[in-house]
């Protein structure tokens, strides 16, 4: 069984089921990628994840990706990096180009789950929205509540979220439990709530192009 805690802290080791294509991904995408691989029967793909907690220190992502790509070169024919820019300001893209590997398009996972075009089209109308994905709903305490210090200093909620109006849960799956947890998260932050089903969005289409 996959544990979210492990995906956050350690990531996920490759299973070694194929030596053709390694998907090198953020731990926050592990379940979604495995679900896609399974329903589509993409047996030529193996998956390795870096710890999802890199999300909070994006300046470390390019080096971590590079090290993993270099380590995988001898084992796999090809590597595809399943990280959006994620706040590296274009540096991850540059690094992937230098390494000669491709990566998924988009500024962050909220955007590619909804579809980069759709997200960009409403970005301006929705700047006071705070987004969660399935992973972040499950890991809300580990990725938002505790790192932002709200458990120790509840007065910081207003300082950090004072300009926000609603929490938008971008749902990858139909799951009433997650819907309930996301609504709770919105309440804890003092925000309105909206659930928007996205499915796997551009993640599905990007991986589908990796057929060989």
């Amino acid at each position, binding site marked *: 069984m996959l544990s979210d805690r492990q995906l956050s802290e350690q990531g996920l080791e490759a299973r070694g089921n194929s030596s053709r294509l390694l998907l090198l991904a953020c731990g926050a995408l592990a379940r979604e990628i495995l679900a896609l691989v399974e329903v589509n029967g993409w047996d030529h793909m193996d998956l390795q994840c870096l710890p999802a907690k890199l999300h909070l*220190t994006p300046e470390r992502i390019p080096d971590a990706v590079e090290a993993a790509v270099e380590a995988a070169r001898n084992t796999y024919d090809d590597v595809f990096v399943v990280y959006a820019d994620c706040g590296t*300001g274009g540096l991850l893209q540059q690094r992937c180009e230098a390494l000669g590997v491709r990566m998924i398009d988009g*500024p962050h996972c909220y955007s590619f789950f909804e579809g980069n075009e759709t997200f*960009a089209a409403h970005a301006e109308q929705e700047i006071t929205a705070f987004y969660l994905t399935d992973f972040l709903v499950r890991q809300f305490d580990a990725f938002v509540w505790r790192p932002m210090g709200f458990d120790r200093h509840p007065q910081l909620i207003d300082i*950090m979220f004072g300009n926000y109006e609603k929490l938008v849960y971008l749902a990858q799956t139909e799951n009433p439990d997650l819907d309930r947890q996301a609504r709770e998260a919105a309440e804890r932050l003092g925000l309105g709530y909206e659930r928007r089903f996205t499915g796997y969005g551009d993640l599905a289409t990007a991986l589908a192009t990796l057929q060989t």
Partner: protein
Amino acid sequence: MSDEEDDLILSELPDEELVPQMMDDLYDGMKEEVEEGVNILLERGWTPYDILTKALVEGMAIVGVDFRDGILFVPEVLLAAGAMKGGMEILKPLLVETGAPRLGKMVIGTVKGDIHDIGKNLVAMMMEGAGFEIVDLGINNDVDKYIDALKAEGADILGMSALLTTTMPYMKVVIDTLVETGARDDYIVLVGGAPLNEEFGKAIGADAYCRDAAVAVETAKELIMRKHNRGAD
């Protein structure tokens, strides 16, 4: 904290122990204690400017270094900033009265589409602490808001902040507009925010990219000095 420290009576400490204690309190985000320390130093005849620079700004500089080195995290920085702000609120009116040095005026704001403001607020505060007058436009600023404020305020410096890869290119829109209207050379343009880098700052035509608030202060001082020297000849 140990019991011993709980019982500490700030007003009984000599200056040379009180100031480091205030820096510790600032580091720990203890707003009331910092405010108390400021009031004690005022009573002891310190100038507002000395209190600001020798206790508050210096204390906050330590916070900045430890944040950069990964020892402190966002919530701790916010709490420390809150404590510093408490002290500054007391000093601000007095600084004006006592004619503390004025280095220049900065209009600062987060760019359109972006509502991250922690870093921007920190820069504004440290710049103010260093003697710059600050006009804070808040978040989500379009080109008109920046340029109207620069003109209305007769500012020397424009500061723009962005934390999203999708919003950082907007800085170029603002700079290009300044160029088109022939106003680019009237202002020093500083940019910052975690996803930016030196190369990006150059590419969009900013005067400087600053990695943190301390660098912002140093850079602003230097560029203002150069601007004045140029003005003189």
